């Protein structure tokens, strides 16, 4: 285990940077390579959808719960999906107990926005009866082990959870909801598969999927969510700045690598069939 308690030493820092200058990473990856992905789905029986996602040593478990509630008045025929994230203190000595801090808020928001603006969730399919009853989905992300790049792991985790979801189907009878015995599954709920990709910047060098030591010394990051042919969300964080050329290059890179990752992970394999 690499100690993440001490401040990364100057020597280590220089080692990382020198490697990057040669377009190499300390774990042997190239600048545009992800660490290994491992995905398990539907592992939590009490959730209506779940995923256990590892990206290298980063591990995130996500579950979905639902409630039936009244729709917002301005979108009377659409359900709602909210994303919450918690950085469990179990996952790293860097995480503290207590109410959600900036880092967990950022994780939840970036994942949420990646999903929300990408025509990913068919919110109209989450309507039971206009003006009366819609599904409210809670996608809750728990970080189990922290080893850098929570956002990309969280994004895949949330998406897998939604794809694996299976929510009891309700219909509106008289003035209340009755259960049909059937299920609404991820196949119905999810349309687009937006991928969020995070790039780190150290000095002038930009690279994908920062590992923990890279993340601890990087000047800033940028997360870009992409569908097949569109960028749906961008979020810069940290004290780095990016030239406009860099941003254009990264948008292109995100699209390219996003399509590659979408193909490789083949997330639709995690949908659940209920007879």
């Amino acid at each position, binding site marked *: 285990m690499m100690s993440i308690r001490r401040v990364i030493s100057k020597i280590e820092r220089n080692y990382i940077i020198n490697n990057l200058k040669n377009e190499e990473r300390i774990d042997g990856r190239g600048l545009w390579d992800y660490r290994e992905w491992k995905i398990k789905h539907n592992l939590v029986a009490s959730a209506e959808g779940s995923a256990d996602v590892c990206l290298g040593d980063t591990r995130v*478990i996500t579950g979905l719960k639902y409630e039936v509630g009244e729709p917002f008045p301005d979108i009377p025929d659409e359900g709602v999906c909210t994303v919450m994230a918690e950085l469990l203190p179990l996952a790293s000595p860097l995480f503290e107990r207590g109410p959600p801090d900036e880092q967990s808020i950022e994780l939840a928001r970036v994942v949420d926005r990646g999903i929300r603006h990408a025509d990913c969730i068919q919110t109209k399919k989450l309507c039971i009866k206009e003006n009366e009853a819609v599904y409210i989905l809670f996608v809750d992300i728990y970080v189990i082990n922290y*080893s850098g790049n929570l956002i990309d792991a969280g994004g895949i985790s949330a998406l897998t959870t939604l794809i694996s979801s299976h929510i009891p189907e309700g219909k509106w009878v008289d003035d209340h909801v009755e259960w049909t015995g059937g299920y609404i599954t991820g196949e119905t709920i999810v349309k687009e598969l937006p991928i969020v990709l995070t790039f780190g910047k150290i000095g002038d060098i930009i690279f994908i999927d920062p590992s923990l030591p890279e993340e601890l010394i990087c000047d800033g990051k940028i997360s870009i969510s992409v569908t097949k042919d569109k960028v749906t969300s961008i979020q810069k964080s940290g004290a780095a700045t990016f030239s406009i050329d860099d941003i254009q290059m990264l948008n292109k890179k995100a699209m390219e690598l996003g399509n590659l990752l979408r193909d490789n992970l083949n997330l639709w394999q995690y949908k659940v069939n209920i007879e």
Partner: protein
Amino acid sequence: MTLLIKDEYPEKLFREDGKRLDGRDLKELRPIKLEVGILNNADGSAYLEWGNNKIFAAVYGPREVHPHHLAKPDKGILRVFYRMATFSVFERKRPAPGRREKEISMIITDCLEPVLFLELYPGTSFEVFIDVIEADGGTRCASTTVAALALADAGIPMKSLVSSVAVGKIDGKIVVDLSGIEDKAGEADLPCAITWFNEEISLLQFDGDMDLNELDTFLKLAKDALKEIYEMQLNALKSKYITIQEKYNGGQVKQ
């Protein structure tokens, strides 16, 4: 996959063949799976599946106490933080830790403390984080069992392991290791834990309606079940060391 839409309980908790709903005999434990050392940031960690319970435990320590004023000059302190994921139960739990989680944290602290040598670590703390990903009856016992493994994995000196299980009464019969449904629909529940160095009870809670003879039976049954769990804990620790040993030999290949 069965999905209950309402959190309803069956009327009978035994099948016609006399077995429990999940096919178990009266004294039979649910399947238990234990792994140690699965989280690489923690000083010690363990993962447990027990029936549908899925629980992670991680230990950090000895380390500085935050906030400082909790530190004790003459001994270390043990702090346990038991938390449930929102989706670990039928009705979504609110994200913030509730009273029940605080109470269980305290009970597990009291249960584990007797096996530690806290007097050797003045001014420091050991923190045990227990996160329940899925809950299915007996989470406090399962949590205690997995937390003891995480402490052992951290290499913290211990007088012995701690094992824990619940005994209960359902449909008038005394059974070992209540499942979630049995816990909710049953008549009585007695979670307990044992510290093996003195073979005494270090966790004991009971809610029900029991006469003295029945309670005696409970405790006897519990002891047998606790022995089974203890064996599994020892095996989990051994297999980790076997794995490490293999890895190490792997590093020294073909000498």
